[in-house]
């Protein structure tokens, strides 16, 4: 048994509609992912600075 799937001109609209639904969601995910990316990069910059500071102060204390 296979399900019925008749071809009508309507079908190309249906496939377009389905693709738009998918596209809109993927677009939103890309936006979210890009935003998360920016946040992660800020966090990395922050951590790198902290690490540098800590090391500098460590050096300073070992000299002093």
């Amino acid at each position, binding site marked *: 048994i296979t399900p019925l799937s008749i071809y*009508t001109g309507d079908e190309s609209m249906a496939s377009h509609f389905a693709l738009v639904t998918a596209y809109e969601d993927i677009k939103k995910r890309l936006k979210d992912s890009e935003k998360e990316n920016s946040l992660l990069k800020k966090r990395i910059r922050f951590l790198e600075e902290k690490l540098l500071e800590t090391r500098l102060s460590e050096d300073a204390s070992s000299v002093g």
Partner: protein
Amino acid sequence: MEETGEEPPTSAVLLDHCHFSQIIFNNVEKFYIPGGDITCHYTLTQHFIPRRKDWIGIFRVGWKTTREYYTFMWATLPADLNSKSSLQQQVQFKAYYLPKDDEYYQFCYVDQDGVVRGASVPFQFRPESEEDILVV
């Protein structure tokens, strides 16, 4: 419902949402774990009457004709259409029949006349990578 190709573009645009959104898919995950069964939850909108040969297919995103379904299940026939709870339905797809790649797929509800009544957001069959659990 047949487009002859002679009509002005406006009709194509207006016709748009009327019947494509009669079925709403709910709780669709972004990722389904490969090798597991999946449950497809959907809601019948108010005036939609399901029929015996309606079906739900899993389609690879970008499909052109409903014949391209990867796998399908017959839609559930609600016991009593007048009860509120009948509007919430679900069907289960067995792991064996599911795609084995990590492409994007979507559920589509096709009625027994071959008309598409709803399409879901896309999902993939892959584990969410463990790095993604880290919260910023």
